[in-house]
């Protein structure tokens, strides 16, 4: 595999179905453990789930398609505000509908972001991604009638799910709802990355010229992936709105985008599992350090990034996967 401190995607060599079944089983077990081990901390775990969806969506675009973007929070925030506005201003408080609306909002944000960002390559692409997150942020800031501006959007009171499960103060309903959403999305994404479309995207990351020499449209494929990514991020944003009952401008911030990228790289790009692990590690560390003021946290994030690039470019999951692969090959 490629040498040096480069942040590379994890090789798609382990491709058997039952790897995924094991993976899903692990997620279920971890989720159940979380429920029983941290009953007073479910709000934190629920927040983790929402962010996992954002980081998963980022993995699609960065890990699988190779688009480096610092503006991905726009898709998350698009979903969050769509769901929040639907609830607070239009009285749509049925949770599953809110999630659906959020997905559409995220997809729309994804479409716009994708079209803008893919206009450039290299530095221009990065610049466009930064510009677009700031643009979305400012737009939300100014449209304060709908979004609440810098005060945030509150007054989101979701109905009981399916009319039966009320959102309780301990966050149990929200947590289980989140796990179900996460598993559904995750399973669909595993199917997606194995599909011909998924392979095409990975091809685009590895050599876009070869892809168009095969007769496939690179730009169209990437935009489709951006829309899918928007659906996922939108679900995450909407879930965040439903579970915390508030939507803030920070969901549309550059810092949010950058942190999502840190989480993804920390866990390992290009595997979906890395996205999950990276989020858990990062949010957990953040919680530990949360007593410190925001600037200390920023320094820690920065140091973490530098450390990952220098010492563990494949991330936690990627490095582990490489060890396992080498062990398997060595013992043959």
């Amino acid at each position, binding site marked *: 595999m490629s040498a040096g401190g480069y942040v590379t*995607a994890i090789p798609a060599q382990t491709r058997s179905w039952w790897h995924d079944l094991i993976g899903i089983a692990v997620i279920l077990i971890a989720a159940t453990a979380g429920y029983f081990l941290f009953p007073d901390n479910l709000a934190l775990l629920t927040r983790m789930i929402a962010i996992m969806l954002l980081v998963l969506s980022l993995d699609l675009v960065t890990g699988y398609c190779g688009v480096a973007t610092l503006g991905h929070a726009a898709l998350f925030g698009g979903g969050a505000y769509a769901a929040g506005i639907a609830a607070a201003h239009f009285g749509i408080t049925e949770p599953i509908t809110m999630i659906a609306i959020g997905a559409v909002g995220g997809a729309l944000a994804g479409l716009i972001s994708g079209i803008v960002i893919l206009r450039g390559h290299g530095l221009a692409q990065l610049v466009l991604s930064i510009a677009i997150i700031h643009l979305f942020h400012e737009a939300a800031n100014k449209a304060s009638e709908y979004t609440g501006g810098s005060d945030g959007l509150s007054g989101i009171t979701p109905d009981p799910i399916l009319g039966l499960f009320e959102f309780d103060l301990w966050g149990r309903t929200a947590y289980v709802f989140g796990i179900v959403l996460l598993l559904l999305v995750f399973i669909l994404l595993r199917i997606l990355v194995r599909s*011909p479309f998924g*392979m095409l995207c990975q091809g685009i990351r590895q*050599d876009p010229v*070869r892809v168009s*020499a*095969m007769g*496939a449209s690179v730009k169209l494929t990437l935009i489709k992936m951006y829309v899918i990514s928007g659906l996922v991020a939108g679900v995450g944003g909407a879930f965040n709105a439903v579970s915390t009952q508030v939507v803030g401008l920070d969901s549309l911030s550059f810092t949010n985008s950058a942190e999502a990228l840190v989480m993804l790289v920390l866990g390992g790009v290009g595997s979906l599992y890395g996205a999950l692990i990276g989020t858990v590690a990062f949010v957990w560390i953040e919680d530990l350090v949360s007593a410190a003021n925001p600037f200390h946290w920023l320094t820690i994030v920065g140091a973490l990034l530098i450390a990952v690039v220098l010492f563990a470019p494949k991330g936690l999951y990627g490095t582990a996967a490489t060890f396992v692969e080498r062990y398997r090959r060595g013992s043959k």
Partner: protein
Amino acid sequence: MTTLFEVDHLQKTFGGLNVTHDVSLTLGKGDRVALIGPNGAGKTTFVNLVTGHLRPDSGKVLMDGEDISTFKPMRRVRAGLVRSFQVTRLFAEMTPEEHVSLAILQRQGKSGRMAGSFQAMPDVMQETYEILETLNLTALGRVPVSEIAYGQQRLLEIALALALRPKVLLLDEPAAGVPHSDTFLIENALAQLPADLAVLMIEHDMDLVFRFAKRVIVLAAGEIIFDGLPVDATNDVRVREVYLGRELINLMEML
């Protein structure tokens, strides 16, 4: 011969340099043509112009009578014009099986499918392994490309071209970078190409050229100076001049 592929008075100038000067040629079904010429003659530029990676100043490209001059590269591939690259362009982390299957799926218009693994599609897998078999790559089917030898990577490039079922195939130095002992692999692969496919091959390896080509086109300084039988090419005065230089020929004739 029914004309399958036609290039009409192609012209390209870079700054003050005329890299392609009034180049015209035609290819028919089953043609086996070699495009040769000294370094810097403009052969790869020609391929880039014809495949749509470079825009010509004037001139036309026609496929099956259809004017494809304004088509983007991707559209030309779909029209049946496929090229291979002088320096291998493959997906380092994917296996030959995945490469060929992806090409097949793309040809079938199924590469946008968002569910179902290609390994569960029996017709795709069968065709994939048929193609890999023709090029002796079956054993390496599931090895990532970054781990297979360069000569075999070149073969995979040809396999990809085959999978796309082109009408016209442009091979840009298929034997480049391959150790001389392995050139026969490339030759065997070329022999397996479908009979009605028109093939234009750029090459420097003269042995390969003369064994493969039924027609030779010589490009020098952006111009075609010869278009005819291989054996006549070696005897043509202009060709010899371009390769050997006027003074050396004088010397040879003197000795």
